[in-house]
Each structure stands twice: as C-alpha cells, then as structure tokens.
C-alpha cells in the first residue's frame, strides 16, 4: 500500500522538466551506474553557469533530481558546483533511502561536469 510514492515536487519536475535537453556546444558531464544514465550540459560564461540542461534515463526520482539540480545551479558560479551535495535534494524530493545510490549517480555526473568546465576554461582558446 503506497499512499503516494512521489513528493509533489517530484511529480511537478517529472511532469514538466523545464531543463530537459542539451546545451549545444556546452560543457558535458556524463555518468552511468546502476542502470541509470545522466548527461548534464552547461553554457558557461564569465565563470557562470548561464544555462544548464540535463538528459536522464532512470526512475522519476532521478529525473526530478536532475531538474532540481539545474534549477538550483543555473545562473550560479561554476565553481559552486564543488559545493553540490545530494543531501538537500534527497530531502526536498523525499527520495526514499533505498534510492540514495541513484542520486549518487547525479553527484558523479555533477563532478564530471565540473571537471569538463575546468577542462574547458583551462584551455587557452578563451
């Protein structure tokens, strides 16, 4: 018996994932584990995350977590990515504890994105 397995925010984000998609020619973070796959892309300008987009294959909590991440970090400094923690998202979305591992896939993808951005900004191209 499940009164509702999804927090209202999960439902809202899943139904309307405003940040779904991909930034063309952006920095890319990617990670796959436990059958989940996440791809984050970012347009970075003056060290800020101008646009953040995600693609994800996974359960509703994973998709909502990606959307939550994009909403939270879009517009902020790219360096803030280092502060990313799964705890608040787990809480805001009421992710059940047995799905914690899946949210860690997002953490790994964020780390991958951070690295990609650093790689990009390191290059003398700019």
């Amino acid at each position, binding site marked *: 018996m499940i009164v509702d397995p999804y927090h209202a925010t999960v439902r809202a984000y*899943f139904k309307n994932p405003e940040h779904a998609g991909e930034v063309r020619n952006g920095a890319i973070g990617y990670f796959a584990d436990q059958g989940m796959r996440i*791809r984050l892309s970012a347009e970075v300008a003056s060290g800020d995350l101008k646009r953040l987009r995600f693609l994800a*294959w*996974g359960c509703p909590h994973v998709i909502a977590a990606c959307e939550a991440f994009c909403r939270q970090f879009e517009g902020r400094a790219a360096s803030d990515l280092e502060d990313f923690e799964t705890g608040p998202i787990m809480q805001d979305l009421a992710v059940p504890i047995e799905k914690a591992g899946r949210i860690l896939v997002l953490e790994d993808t964020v780390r991958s994105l951070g690295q990609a951005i650093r790689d990009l900004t390191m290059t003398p191209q700019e």
Partner: protein
Amino acid sequence: MTVVPVYLDYAATTPLDARVAARMREVQTTAYFNPASNHAAGRQSAAVVLHAARQLGALLNVEPATLIWTSGATESNNLAILGVAKQRAHRGKHLITMRTEHKAVVDVFRALEKQGFDVTWLPPDREGRVSLATVESALRDDTQLVSIMHINNETGVVQDIEGIGKLCRPRGIIFHVDGAQSVGKVPLDLGSLPIDMMSMTAHKFYGPKGIGALFLADGTPLEPQMFGGGQQRRLRPGTLPVDLIAGFGEAAAAAAQTMDDDLAKLVALKNQLWVGIRDIDGVQLNSPETGGYPGILNVGVADIEGESLLLALEPLCVATGSACNSQSQEPSYVLRALGRTDPEAQSAIRFSLGRQSQQAEIDYAISSYRAAVEKLRALAPGAAV
C-alpha cells in the same frame, strides 16, 4: 481531490456490478443475520447463503456443497495447498507447481519448502505455457499435489488445465487450479473437468472484495488451516459474511449471463489497443500471440525505464507486473521466467480491460502510451547523444 482516472487495471480488481451492489444492499437490510444462528432471522440468512452457493454452483456446474467460502483467492490457495500437502505428508512430500504462478501460490510453496517439502518448479515456454510433456516428466511416485493456475494474471496466458488434470487423476494426484483470473470471465465446467480444487475470488469479476471460495471436489482430502466453530464442515470457521456471499452469487449469475458479450467486446478492444501501439519502435508483446485471455495485454518496450513509464502514463491506471507486486520495482519474475531480460521485464506494462472499458479509453491509452514512450526517449541521453 478525487482523480478521475482511466482505469485499465481490471485484472487487479473490478468495480461492483450494479446488480451485485443492489443485491448486497438488500441483504444488508433484510438478512444481515448470522447464518449459523438457530432462529428465524438466522435461517433467512442461511437461505441467502444457499441461494448464492447455487448461483455460483450453476456458473461452474458443481453442487453448492462443494464450495467453501473464504476471504479471497489468497486464502483459498493457502487452504488448498497447505491443506492437501499437510494432509498427505505421510504419503509423500513431492509437490509440483509453476514458476509463473501468482505470489499467493509461489509463497505458499516456498513456505512448504522450508518445512521440508520437495517442490518442482516447472518452467513455461517463451509464451508462458507449460507443456503436458513438462508436467508429465515431473510426476513421481511420491507426488501428492500439482498446482497450476488457469489464466496468468500478468500475461493472460491460459494453461491446459484439462490436459494436466488428465495426467493427475489416474495417478491419484490432487490437482489444484488457481482460477482467480478465470472464474466468472471464461466458461468453466468444473463438473466435467478433472480438477479437484479451484481457488476463486469475487472481486476479479465485479463481485465484492473480501470474499472468495474454494471448490473442493467430493472426497478431496483437506486439513483445515483455521480453527474455531463448526461452520463449513469445520474446514473454514468464522461468521459467514452473508452480504458478501450474496454479492458473490449475484456476480456469478451476472457473469453467466453476460460472459459471451463480455468476451467478444474484450477481443475487439484488446485488438484495438495492440494495433494502436505495436508499431512503436522496440515494442514487445509479453502476452501470447494467440489464445490468451482477451482482457489482458502485456507489452514491454526497449530501453524505457518502467517506473518512469508508469508515472508518465498517469492518470492512466495500468499495472507493472501483478498488482500485488507493484509496490516493488523489481522486474516481474513472471516475465523473467518467460525469458525476458531484466530491462525488458522492467519496462512491461499490463493493460487489463473489463466490462466497463470503452473504445475511447483505449484510444486514450494508445495516445498516452505513445506520448510517454516518446517523452522518455527524448529525455534519455542515449537517444540525444
């Protein structure tokens, strides 16, 4: 905040038929008494129970006295399987069932295994059927009980219960059939089939929830699993819920009347549904190509996550796996037994149709399903990279 869903989960449970509801209300006001009470009121209720047993007996072509009332097919399965296994344990401990049975059979046999019984788990073919050769080769001198379901709740595949019964009867092996998904939905002549016990439940065919029955052919050995009071020949005690029993009987009478029409309608609707989605890239039929029960269509789709698919389909009410298992996100053990991979099984959706289903609902289901698959594919990195 009442949701008005499109309900295509009739295999999980059904609404009350209007005649059933009316009969129950009548009994609740005029014959709510205890049928075991030895007074005029009690006898009125006893007559109601007898009438219902006659209605159900007429549907199945058996004597009313062969029907034991229970709380549902889960209890009937437990009573039948535990009751025979324990009653016959001194003769032998070998039991046979199938991998794709409902949990209410699987878990009973698992419990018996822990108690030292030797259970053979028969495999189905890729369409979900168990062959008579497979059954026959599993029979042993010490086999006491074979339990095979009639219609599978996840895929709608129909087993050859007549053929299996014919293997068991001459060997003196008791044959039990879980008929939860078939009684009241397809024709069944238990008077002539070689079946010793059949489990059933009213709520799967427009009867009330909380009432089931076990057909027990005369002379079948059975140990009761509950004790107390002399009701029902000591096989199943407790105050008989006379209104539920009356509703069960009325559902049987209604089923006898409308079964042919119901089936014809289901065939058309299921076909409409399958035609509407079968061209989607990667769609896979988990129900049998032909000969399956027309109320159930189970389909998987490549590279789609099942839980997200289910949520994307809302407010369409359909099932992943069986209703009883849908709390877990585990891929269906039934589909895995049919040879589906975990991801294949995990994307499976069971559409189950019923008496109230409408063409328009099927149209809605088709467009919902197409849209959901499209949405999730657009979201997936694999597709966008």
